[in-house]
């Protein structure tokens, strides 16, 4: 459902005027400081996976209060959208706790999870990075071969017919169509024609997103789409256009947000509260059915460091305990494919997220900035960790011990994390399967994780 869609959108044009700098530089930091102090939220580096229910509830209360105080800013109209407590309560009550996504025998239930839930997470596989145009179909196919994949947000394109794709040009439309067609084709070749696609990431603009909506060759109503938040508590008309299109087309809409550690919301406490508040923005402004979270460190662009895992765990718990919203947790690692560090980071992120009540979106390696640097194998490990720790009903306290052990293996290396190798070096591209060398590394790390207490199912 989309909560009172047109009444909400009207506020983007009729809300009170405010200068953007006033909103960002003054209103957000001031409101955030106030709720952090009021609710006594405090980062504890010894507990990257905190097990304090009262703290998680405090983060949720702080997020609601912050959201109602600050509102959402439309950069195009310079107006602030405000909401009432009653609207917030109504929207949270009325939103479903699960959805059947995808089609036919490949459809799955994508739903809310609780903290320490024994139900396995819904796992969306995604490298979140661009690939060579000539290898794009095979890269999609490699991901779609993964057995634990419930949905895919596939490899991206940055060239169309050899020319760089530029936002708001015909090449963006062309590249987006090529992406959609490759992905749909790959799904058929992998034998999962009805699989849930969160598509298509190459279409950055509203125009390109509209262009790929087609039930035969493109994005279907049974698929997922994303509305991205760009800057703290901000939106713009293009984002509102995307949201409106998704609602009317019938797609499952995801609110893609990344609270930035170190930016306008401050440190770990503010980052956790902001990410929790983004769930409300997605629900009320964009009418989203799920929340796609990727908080990240300003300096490293990742979320597998100690302070970021605390952020991930805490807002996930806050949302899981206080709502029935559907949320997933997007890993952003420092190291690149083919390194043990990436596998440790992915395991830590998947473990933290799963026991904290989130679904999984794994994973963006190498700080999400290196072309071709992402493979299905590290995402497979994340999915297997998620399924294992859910099935064994792992507690947050147990998870905290394992995550601390994993952090000891990689946290000092974060500033100088290895970029790793490209998909083409680690995979047999024609067969769309991993090469022995990377499989051996994956098996070795999986054995280490087992020794730390993760009871893999196979």
């Amino acid at each position, binding site marked *: 459902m989309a909560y009172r869609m047109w009444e909400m959108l009207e506020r983007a044009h009729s809300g009170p005027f405010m200068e953007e700098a006033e909103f960002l530089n003054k209103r957000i930091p001031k409101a955030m400081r106030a709720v952090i102090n009021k609710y006594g939220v405090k980062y504890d580096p010894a507990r990257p996976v905190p097990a304090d229910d009262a703290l998680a509830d405090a983060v949720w209360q702080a997020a609601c209060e912050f959201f109602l105080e600050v509102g959402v800013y439309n950069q195009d109209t310079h107006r602030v959208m405000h909401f009432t407590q009653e609207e917030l309560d109504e929207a949270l009550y009325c939103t479903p706790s699960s959805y059947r996504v995808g089609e036919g025998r490949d459809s799955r239930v994508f739903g809310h999870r609780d903290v320490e839930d024994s139900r396995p997470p819904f796992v969306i596989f995604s490298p979140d990075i*661009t690939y060579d145009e000539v290898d794009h179909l095979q890269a999609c196919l490699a991901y779609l071969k993964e057995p634990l994949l419930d949905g895919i947000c596939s490899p991206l394109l*940055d060239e169309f017919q050899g020319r760089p794709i530029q936002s708001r040009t015909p090449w963006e439309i062309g590249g987006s169509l090529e992406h959609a067609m490759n992905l749909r084709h790959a799904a058929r070749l992998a034998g999962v024609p009805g699989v849930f696609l969160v598509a298509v990431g190459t279409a950055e*603009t509203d125009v390109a997103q509209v262009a790929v909506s087609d039930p035969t060759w493109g994005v279907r109503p049974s698929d997922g789409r994303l509305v991205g938040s760009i800057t703290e508590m901000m939106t713009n008309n293009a984002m509102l256009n995307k949201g409106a299109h998704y609602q009317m087309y019938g797609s499952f809409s995801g609110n893609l947000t990344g609270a930035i550690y170190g930016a306008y919301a401050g440190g770990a406490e503010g980052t956790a509260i902001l990410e929790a508040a983004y769930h409300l923005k997605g629900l009320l402004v964009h009418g989203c059915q799920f929340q796609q979270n990727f908080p990240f460190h300003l300096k490293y662009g990742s979320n597998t460091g100690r302070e970021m895992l605390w952020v991930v765990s805490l807002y996930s718990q806050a949302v899981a305990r206080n709502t029935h919203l559907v949320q997933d947790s997007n890993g952003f690692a420092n190291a690149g494919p083919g390194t043990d560090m990436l596998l440790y980071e992915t395991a830590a992120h998947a473990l933290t997220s799963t026991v904290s009540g989130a679904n999984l979106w794994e994973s963006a390696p190498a700080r999400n900035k290196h072309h071709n640097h992402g493979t299905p194998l590290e995402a497979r490990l994340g999915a297997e960790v998620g399924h294992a720790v859910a099935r064994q009903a792992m507690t947050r306290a147990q998870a905290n011990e394992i995550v601390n052990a994993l952090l000891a293996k990689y946290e000092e290396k974060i500033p100088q994390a290895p970029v790793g190798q490209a998909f083409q070096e680690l995979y047999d591209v024609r067969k769309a399967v991993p090469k022995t060398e990377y499989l051996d590394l994956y098996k070795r790390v999986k054995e280490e994780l087992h020794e730390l207490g993760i009871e893999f199912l196979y």
Partner: protein
Amino acid sequence: MERVDTLKTAMVDGDEEACAALARQLIAQGADLKAVIDKLAAEMEEVGRRFERMDIFLPEVLLAAGGMTAVMGVFAPQLEKGAIRERKSTVVVGTARGDMHQIGKDLVALFLGIAGYRVVDLGTDVDPLDFIHRAEEAQAEIIAISSLMTTTMPGATEVLELLKDKGLRDTVKVMVGGAPTSQAWADMIGADGWAEDSSGAVELVKELIGRA
């Protein structure tokens, strides 16, 4: 001296009213304003270093920058009278066409301002020709373009191509940055420099101005 230390504290705390009041008192007692500004600038550099280490976060930097602005607002008429403050170069900053990600651009603009440069912030999603027109208007020495997406990186290339087409390439330096960019890409498109982050951007501006 004691009053200057109090002013530094007020500046770091972002107490703009106290900053303005202390600045007025310093003028009234005939203080050496250039020496005061130098001390405040040194303190702001320390704020920048603490931010670089993530000992503090952006809100604290904004508070200190607001305090500094309050002081300079009071000092400005005196400085103009005595021509005390040297005016540094102008930098036009913005994100490439189609790019709405502003945190990197915001940090570059903030730290260039703290370093004393005049910054013309064009915001996000800037038309390539606007970069050029605004640089001409402001007589800017440098255009700084940020891209956070591969699909908006060509927007920076367009600025360079338009500068060449208009015969203006030699009149302004162009620097680029943003998560998916690199020195190799900057070299490939013919930019004058590339910076990985905001502190790198300030250093690059110093270098480019020196090279001009």
